[in-house]
Every structure is written in structure tokens, then in C-alpha cells.
């Protein structure tokens, strides 16, 4: 499932999977801009049938590690 999260993540940002690490953030990943962040949120909401609140949306923008952590928690696998 961890792999699936990363796979979805890179498919939206259209970057090679090796480029994404836990420390990746909008500061060092060019395509992770605010518009793509919205798309990320929607793709994950759709794929895992979850709802992500605006507060969580902001937190998830901190780093890929944080992003992954919040998704994992929501789908009950952390």
C-alpha cells in the first residue's frame, strides 16, 4: 500500500519514482505546486474513497513523508 501511495503521487506530478523521498516538498519538487496539490488531494480521495479536510490538506503540503503518513492513517494502515 505504501508503494501504491507513491505510485499515485508520482503519476499526478509526472516525475520519476526515484525522485520522491520522504523529505520531498513543494520547495524541492517543482511540479508539486498548489494546483497540483489540489489534484493530488482529489486523486487520493477518489482512489481510497476517503475525505481529506482543508486542515489536513495544509499539513500534507509540508513533505511527502507527512503526506504519506496522513493518507496511511486514513486508510487504517499506520
Amino acid at each position: 500500500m505504501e508503494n501504491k501511495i507513491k505510485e499515485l503521487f508520482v503519476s499526478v506530478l509526472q516525475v520519476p519514482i526515484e525522485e520522491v523521498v520522504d523529505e520531498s516538498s513543494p520547495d524541492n519538487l517543482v511540479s508539486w505546486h498548489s494546483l497540483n496539490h489540489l489534484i493530488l488531494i482529489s486523486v487520493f480521495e477518489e482512489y481510497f474513497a476517503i475525505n481529506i479536510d482543508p486542515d489536513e490538506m495544509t499539513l500534507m503540503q509540508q513533505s511527502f513523508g507527512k503526506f504519506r503518513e496522513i493518507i496511511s492513517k486514513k486508510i487504517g494502515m499506520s
Partner: protein
Amino acid sequence: MKINELKIMKSSLADFSLTDYFQGLKKLREKLDLSQFKSIRIAVLRSYTCEILEPILSFHLLLEGYKPEFYFCDFNQYSQDVLDVQSKFYQFHPGLVLFLVRIEELLPPFLWSYSDKKHVEWQDEFEKIYNNYVNLINKISEHTSAQILIQNLYLVSNFFGIQDGQQVNGQKTLVQLFNQRLKEVIVKKKNTFIWDFEGFVAKIGYNALYDPKMWYVARNPYKQTAYMDIARELLRYVLSINNQVIKCVVVDLDNTLWGGVIGEDGLNGIALGQDYPGNCFVDFQKELLRLYKRGIILAINSKNNEADVFAVLDKHPDMVLRRQHFAVCRINWEDKVSNLKSIAEELNIGSDSIVFIDDNSAECALVRGQCSCLVMQMPNKPYLIPQFVNSLPWIEKIYVTDEDLKKGVMYQEQLVRKKLEKSCESLEDFLTSLKMEVQIREADNFNIPRIAQLTQKTNQFNMTTRRYQEADILNFANSGQYSVFVVSARDCFGEHGNIGVFILKFIDQMSVIDTFLLSCRVIGRTIEETMLAFIADFAFKRGAKRLVGEFIASGKNVPAKNFYLKAGMIENDDGRFFADLHTTVFRYSPYIKLMI
């Protein structure tokens, strides 16, 4: 990447999720060789956040053979972009402009303070908006040759709620009037079209579109998933504006045109009638009849006994489609791939402009692997079948010409002609017996849409395959340097309508044939000989001394390759063909009566 894989993606788009789009796009970008793809440059002038259209539309367009590039104006900055001829918008050189503006951003007080003004004052406000639209559209078409697609307006909720619905001159009326006037503008403008957003919302429902979370967080009004529907809707416009429309729908019969199997259930046993599931198949046939009326040809490809099937087509009381609606019937025990190929051959169209519909997944897979047509499998629930036809994006026609409306009948007549051809002893006898009449006229407002359509769609007998939009043809017709002619034909069986086009350019006492094409329906009738002889006479009268023709190979126009040479023109070192108009005599076809 295998073509097959692309076709499977294309036929399963209706079930795509947002995730599928992104994963599909990644795959296409990695694996496709885009060198043969047509470029399409799309500028989005918008009043709201809609960037997600880029990946979704890109995916669709890649599947259709386009290589898209996008430009988005800054949020709500479309007027500045259009009015400043130095702007990034113009530097982008768009081929297609999507003008996506909503009433919410256009006139916020109309939504929130409607009661502050009287009806006539609001009319003035809309007058201003209208004038601004006209101005912007004119500016764009003045400085680009782009096609423009304009979103019309939709008002979600009325200021006075249900009371507005009781008013003759209410709030919603103003919006509707505006949309009405917008149509009047684009009727006069070539290359400008309306995206009927009002109709789209009616179809999909505003609540299904609106996303309050994304709106308040990011000014993104619609659900990201709703942009899939928006993109699919826009795709219909893009495809039909560029004439990327299917020409023929080929259907299987058992469990497709009716429920059950005719060979087993018999005439009275198949499901077709007023009750479920027969009513689903009746409506499916009505949908196909709609396509037929739009100018899409219907054909049958089925493993059956011909007599059983014709009994249904001719005698079943609940059949909507009858024998005369099908241009070609392949009812036999041959494999479906060979049948499809012979249907394409008989109709003189490419297999890639055919959609084949069958209920059997094994047949679908087989055909998909071996024929370039698009294969769609019927939904497995009968009640989903009628709307399935409408989900196909390739069936739209933004221009419906007179020829389209008559096409079904024309193909029927064509079949009778073919039978005559077989019964005639020689080709000469056949051509004589047709009693052909050809008319050649200069382009006018009535036939320009058809002329553009012919340049877009004609592949085989097309010397240069230059594709033109209506606006291009209009420019040629209005310029003193060009002459545009359209050719229509009829014979003893009926009308062919407008089937040929030629465009001449006059430079330095030369007449250059920019375009010379003939619809595949009338290839081999010697009409082209009469056209060329007419051109020579016309050019000579206009003072030209030499006639110049070109042949540009497109891979599909082999039938036209040696035409100029055979007609007596001389090939030069540069590959062009020449004729001295003083000395060369072009023969008018003896089988054709020319009416001018």
C-alpha cells in the same frame, strides 16, 4: 506501445477514474512516439481554476492522435490577454481558444445584489458584457486564425428563489437572452462556436459539479472528478470542429440490435417491443436512426442466415431500422474481421473511421486485434444500451450539411449503381447508362461549410490534402488572387450533392491548383477529367498562360497519384506538373453533361 492497447483504453474511457487518467497519461507519455502526431495548441482564457483540464484533455487528445500544448491565462485576466497584442496569449500562437468564463466572476452583483437594480438596468449591464464579448472575439479572430469555443452562461440559483420562475422578465431570463444573442454572434463568425454549458449543467446536474470544499479552499468551483465530464464534453467539440468524426457504425444483430438470437428464438421470440427488455433495443435503434439522420452510415456485420435477418428487417412490427437504413449488410458465417474490411472497401472509407458494436467480448477482442476500426462492446445491462450510443464522443457534428442529411439515401442509391456496374458489359456502357450531370459553381455562403468539410475529410482522390477551415475558404473566396469552386453531381439514380472542390491561385500568369479533390463516392466516373478541362478553360480566360499542379503524397491518396500525368500535363524536375494553356488540350469527359 501497441495500437491494440490504445484502442482498449479508448473503448473503456467511460469507466475511467481520475487515477486512471493520470496513470494512463504517464504511460502514454513514456511509450508513444509523437513524431506523427498532429500538433494542437490550446489557449484557455478563463475566469476560474481549471488547470486539471490540461492532463485530462491531454490524455484524450493523445489517444486521438494529437500532440497538445496548453496555455492558461492568469486567473480572470483574459481581457488583458486578448486586448494586448503583445501578450503571452498571442505569443503562444493558439490554434484553439477555450473561452471559459462564468457569470459568477463576470457579474458578481447580479448574483448577490440583484434587487439593487431594475430589470432594464440589468439589461444595460448585460449589453455591456455582450459588447465586450463581441469585441474580444473580434480581437482574437483578427490576430489569430484560432478556432474559438465559448462557454455560455448558467445561473445556478435565483436571487428571489422560486419566485423568479414565475416572472416573465426575471433574473434567469436575462441570462437566457444573453445566451441567445451569443448564438447570433457566432452564426455570422466562422471558426467560433459555443460550448453549451447551460445544456451541459442540465445534463450533469449542478450539485454533481460543484465542490464547496475546493471552492472555498482554492477558488476551484467544480469537483476534480467533474472535470472528467467537462473534458469529455469539450472533446466532442474539438473532434467535430476538426472533423474527426466517424463515418460508419457497424452493428452486430443478436443481442445487439434486438435481444435474443433470431436463429433460435425466431421472429416472434426475439426481445423487441414495448416491454422490458425489448423496449431498450427499440430505443437503441432510435438512437442509431438519429446518427443515420446526421449523416453517419449504418451497416450490419453478423453471423446469421440472411433470410432470417431480412425477415426481421422487413416484417418485425417493432423494428425502427429497416433494410433501407443499412448501406451494407454482411450477414454470413465469415469471420467478422474480413466482413469489416469488405464493408470499408465497399463504402470506400478507411477502417479507422468505423465503429463496430458487438455484444460478444471474444468477437470484440478478435476484431480489435486485427482491424483498425474502433470496437465498442455493448453494455451488459439492456437498460444501459440506449444511452451508450450518446456516450461516444466521435458522433457529434458541429456542422451538419445538406449532404449529411441525405447521406443515408445516397449510399443506398450507390448500391443500386454498383449492381448496374456489375450488369453492364463494359465500363463505357456503364458510364453512359449513368447519364451523369455535373455542375460547377463558385463558392458562396451556402456551400462554404461543405467545401471546408470536403477538404477536411477527403483522403483518396485528393491531390494535395490541404485541410481548410470555413474561415480559410471564406478568405480565399474573398481574395482576388484565388478562385474556389465546388462541384456537384447527379445521375439517373439520384443526387450526389457537392462532391468535388478545386481551389486555384493566380500568380504571374500562372494558375496553380492549390486543391483538387473528389469525394470517394464518385471516384472512377471521369468527373475529374471534366473538372480539369474546366479549370484549363477558366484559367485561360483569366489570362493565365500556364497551369501548375502538385501531388503531395499523404499515404492515402494513391488513387490520385498519376492523374495530372495521364491528363497530359508534364512533370518537372521539382515534382510539379505543368501545362501550356495555349497548346495543351484537356478532354471533357464524354459521359458527363456539364451544367454551369
